[in-house]
């Protein structure tokens, strides 16, 4: 059992196998993304019922909430992939970790922008020091730190190790930061967006929201896979299989 896992692990860890496997997977991932996101967004923006307090402006939630969720998961995934690369010296994990950073940062930025746009009709200002927005801002800074560190190294190997370590430190700190920001926020009592949550949310709202969330996760996986494939080709450009691949196409 363990041996088969190990075997599979080593196989998956090789860039060529990853490339071949993702060639087959990619159309499916793209398909799921389209199937979930397109109707999800249309239903959310066009057909979900209006919120009693906020009117139509709440609809930005269908972008804002999934982006926040994906950004947070992207950081965790980056740290996990980094840890795997650091401990078991798996090349593929390093590449995935590297590709997670800019994509995760983009989702964090998307979340911040939509949050700010949402704030304008709700509070009349573009920015409020709300707990969730503030911790998302800190998360964005954490991503930027990882990206900056990655760019500062000349050797890809040291860059991968250093950023892996930093993202592990970051992921350990993430709950502490989130908790402390929430605590700070209750202390200072600023306004907070209250979306009708959980059970009280009508199914016509919840369904498109869930579709958007899953759709965003698939979108994230598509982006990570595409970026990783490009990175694989660049790193392995001298190897035989990449040369063959280029010759064929």
């Amino acid at each position, binding site marked *: 059992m363990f041996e088969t896992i190990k075997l599979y692990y080593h196989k998956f860890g090789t860039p060529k196998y990853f490339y071949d496997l993702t060639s087959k997977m990619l159309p499916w991932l793209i398909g799921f993304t389209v199937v979930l996101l397109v109707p999800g967004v249309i239903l959310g923006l066009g057909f979900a019922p209006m919120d009693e307090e906020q009117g139509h402006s709440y609809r930005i939630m269908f972008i804002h909430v999934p982006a926040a969720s994906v950004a947070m998961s992207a950081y965790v995934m980056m740290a996990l992939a980094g840890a795997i690369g650091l401990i078991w010296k798996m090349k593929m994990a390093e590449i995935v970790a590297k590709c997670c950073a800019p994509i995760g940062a983009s989702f964090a930025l998307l979340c911040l922008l939509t949050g700010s746009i949402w704030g304008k009709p709700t509070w009349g200002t573009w920015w409020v020091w709300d707990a969730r927005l503030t911790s998302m801002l800190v998360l964005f800074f*954490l991503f930027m730190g990882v990206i900056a560190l990655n760019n500062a190294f000349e050797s890809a190997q040291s860059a991968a190790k250093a950023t892996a*370590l930093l993202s592990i430190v970051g992921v350990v700190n993430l709950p502490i930061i989130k908790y402390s920001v929430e605590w700070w926020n209750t202390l200072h009592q600023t306004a907070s967006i209250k979306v009708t949550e959980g059970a009280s949310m009508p199914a016509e709202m919840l369904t498109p929201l869930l579709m958007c969330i899953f759709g965003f996760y698939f979108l994230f996986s598509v982006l990570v896979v595409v970026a990783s494939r490009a990175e694989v080709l660049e790193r392995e450009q001298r190897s035989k299989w990449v040369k063959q691949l280029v010759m064929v196409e």
Partner: protein
Amino acid sequence: MAVEPEMTYPSLRQGLWAIFKRDLVIAFRQRSDLVNSLFFFIMVITLFPLGVGPEPEILSRIGPGVLWIAALLSTLLSVDSLFRQDYEDGSLEILLLSPQPLFIIVLGKIMAHWCITAVPLILVSPLLGVMLFLDAETIGVLIVTLLLGTPVLSMISAIGAALTVGLRKGGVLIAVIALPLYVPVLIFGTSAVEAASMSLVFSGQLAYLAALAIFSITLAPFAIAAGLRISVSG
């Protein structure tokens, strides 16, 4: 008879103490560095009344935050030199090849660094507190929060310093890496002082700060040691 030379396990305290003492002696022979970060701290705080106006109400309101942010920046400024000199003269390689666990050596270095940079800063903070119109009790709490919080700051920024020591452009990069991680310390530190200035209970914040200090002192040296190995071995 093939006798392997006996492994004498070095005492951890010896290594910790040796590196602690070495760094303190070097710091006192190069006193200018020591004074620089302290004056940076004082000057940043002096700029605030000039920037926002000298009214006692405003200054005593923002005082705790100002003192904490200045402390945080001056830690950040001084930490770049923590491993850089050792890296440049090669003694970091010697430390890495020591039979002692690296985290012990790292702990010794950071303790020395904390004594050199944070202790003077804590010592002058009452004076600056008075200049920002904080009352006596608030200043007392401020000192306690700085005592608990600055070790955390040193530990966090040392992670950044360890990761960037092999790079030419260390300084700003450390800030980008370390500043987001400072958030919890800043929040708990300032809010304890603010609570004290409003005569509210502040023991909770102090407990959080103490927890953060213990957490970072026990775990950060391992991350710092790993970071140094990455930076040196490439």
